[in-house]
């Protein structure tokens, strides 16, 4: 067509677009970008490895406590401190339930399974000082730690995201006041907040989640605010505003879908942080009450026995390290996929 050709507008050009056209346009762009991100995420080997680790751990946290055949808090005092014995490996001489003890008379290798005459039962991770199956306990602990971390993270997400979005979106005086409030709260070290809170509250899952929540939402709100500030002046938001969209519509329909990437990354980073803090609280003596198990209490238990029965610590420590590595790999992959 030559440049001189004059376009003659038809009546159809001035009719508002039908509902079906709007839906088509919006859904195309959104799924398109999401598919791209998914492709880039799964193209990274390390991210896939992290994802596999996390899925495996989650499955084990759900079914792990039941597959060993022993309950996680069944005490059998006569079977205390059994070393790990694994079905197939035992016949090959590795992990056959014997352990080397350092005594004043020198090193002694004992196999308490033989002493007790246990032939057909296997404790893959061994038993603790009360004769409870460490396998069931380790995965029960993983489950409880994960529940605590997930609950705290979800609450952090809801509070932090809303706070950050409101602060960034409305700007001006609202932003200044909300940011000064955060400056003050954020300047109190997490350590102090958590310690003091745990002193005042009863020990238990609820108080740990509350303690994690009080300090965790600030980082989330920083990220939400920074993202909103980036997005809110873009053309499509202005277009929505020009078309007369309300604040709610702009926040939830235009801005939210475009800042989720960064927030999901932050979620993946705050899960290990929560697991870490829970373990820290148990170590200091402010964690889950005695009798219950979480990764933190298991680690503390294992540490106090590490010189005598080192097998008590290794599985829990390995689970914790795997969980942390999985979360970090996925977070790293998400970060790269979003760029």
């Amino acid at each position, binding site marked *: 067509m030559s440049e001189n050709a004059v376009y003659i507008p038809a009546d159809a050009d001035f009719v508002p677009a039908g509902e079906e056209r709007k839906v088509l346009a919006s859904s195309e762009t959104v799924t398109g970008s999401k598919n791209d991100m998914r492709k880039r995420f799964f193209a990274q080997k390390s991210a896939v490895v992290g994802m596999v680790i996390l899925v495996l751990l989650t499955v084990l946290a759900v079914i792990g406590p039941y597959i060993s055949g022993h309950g996680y808090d069944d005490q059998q005092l006569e079977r205390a401190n059994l070393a790990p014995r694994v079905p197939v490996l035992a016949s090959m001489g590795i992990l056959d339930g014997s352990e080397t003890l350092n005594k004043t008379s020198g090193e002694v290798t004992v196999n308490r399974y033989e002493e007790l005459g246990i032939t057909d039962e296997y404790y893959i991770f061994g038993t603790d000082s009360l004769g409870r199956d460490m396998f069931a306990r380790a995965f029960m602990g993983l489950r409880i730690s994960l529940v605590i971390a997930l609950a705290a993270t979800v609450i952090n997400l809801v509070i932090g995201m809303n706070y950050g979005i409101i602060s960034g979106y409305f700007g001006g005086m609202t932003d200044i006041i909300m940011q000064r409030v955060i400056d003050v709260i954020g300047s109190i*070290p*997490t*350590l102090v907040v958590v310690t003091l809170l745990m*002193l005042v509250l009863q020990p238990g899952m609820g108080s740990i989640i509350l303690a994690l929540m009080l300090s965790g939402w600030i980082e989330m709100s920083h990220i939400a605010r920074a993202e909103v500030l980036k997005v809110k002046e873009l053309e499509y938001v202005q277009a929505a505003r020009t078309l007369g969209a309300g604040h709610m519509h702009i926040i939830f329909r235009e801005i939210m879908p475009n800042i989720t990437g960064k927030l999901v990354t932050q979620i993946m980073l705050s899960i290990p942080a929560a697991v870490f803090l829970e*373990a*820290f609280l148990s170590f*200091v003596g402010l964690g889950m009450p005695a009798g219950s198990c979480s990764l933190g209490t298991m680690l503390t238990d294992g540490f106090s026995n*590490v010189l005598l029965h080192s097998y008590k610590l290794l599985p829990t420590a390995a689970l914790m*390290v795997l969980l942390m590595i999985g*979360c970090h790999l996925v977070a790293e992959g998400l970060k790269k996929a979003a760029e």
Partner: protein
Amino acid sequence: MGRYLRKRILISIAILFVILLVLFLLMQLMPGSPFNDAKLSEEQVASLKESYGLDQPVIVQFFRYIGKMLRGDLGVSYSISPNTPITTLIANRFPVTLRIGFFSLIIGTAAGLTLGLITAFFRGRVMKLIFNFFTLIGIAVPSYLFAIFFSWVLGYKWNVFPLLYDFRSPAFSSVMPILAMSLSVMAVIGQFTKAEAEDVIKSDYVLLAKCSGMKSSTIIIKYILRNSLIPVITVMASLLVSLLTGSLVIEKMFSVPGIGGLLTTAISSNDYSVVIALSFVYSALYIVVMLILDILYCVVDPRVRLGGKPS
């Protein structure tokens, strides 16, 4: 810069005030009273309260409390070592914590900077893989797991370093705590330095320096290191927080006589006055360090001075 500093210091003071308020309220909320003895008559309790100033309105108590705190009088310990001023307890232990924390930070930062720079400069595939593996481990594994690992291998199996802190050889027995804490610092700093240095290496001015025949060492130190330092200062803040938390557990594990160990003991023996006093000390320390970092940031990055915010 003067205006920015003044504003920053004012905010810090306000925050300290808020923390004092929170701590004071918590003390009011703590269960129990110091005069719980059933043998005390009402008059005796009243006179005891009068002598400690507890009969005054809460507001008056609050300002007295602030005055005392600011003068450095943190009260006395109830159960750890009864009637010892908390200030003495802290004064004895603070240097130990400070030394271990300082060395962990310095050694970790130096190692991280070196590793990051080397990996960025000699972009080898194998090198990058090794670097990624170690930083991932350093970031993902909490410091107390490192501590357990070291004390088991180095302390118990090989007997290289003492398992517990020893007064007679403070330097030698601090090696394992410092090692355990500096690994995560190294990993974080290393990652940031590497990412930043890779950007700097690709920049035009480094290319120009290379073309004009400068020595590699000059380029690394004068151009790459200096420009990579800015983000490193930013992460220092968050590293310091994790060092504070980590030191608590590490000091307990190696029975290092520092304030972290004091706090854990105070928590487990319900010595509230020590816990509250230490909370104040930790907060004040944290706020002062944040202030110093902000000033440092101001010095390194001129943009901050002109009213922008560090991102």
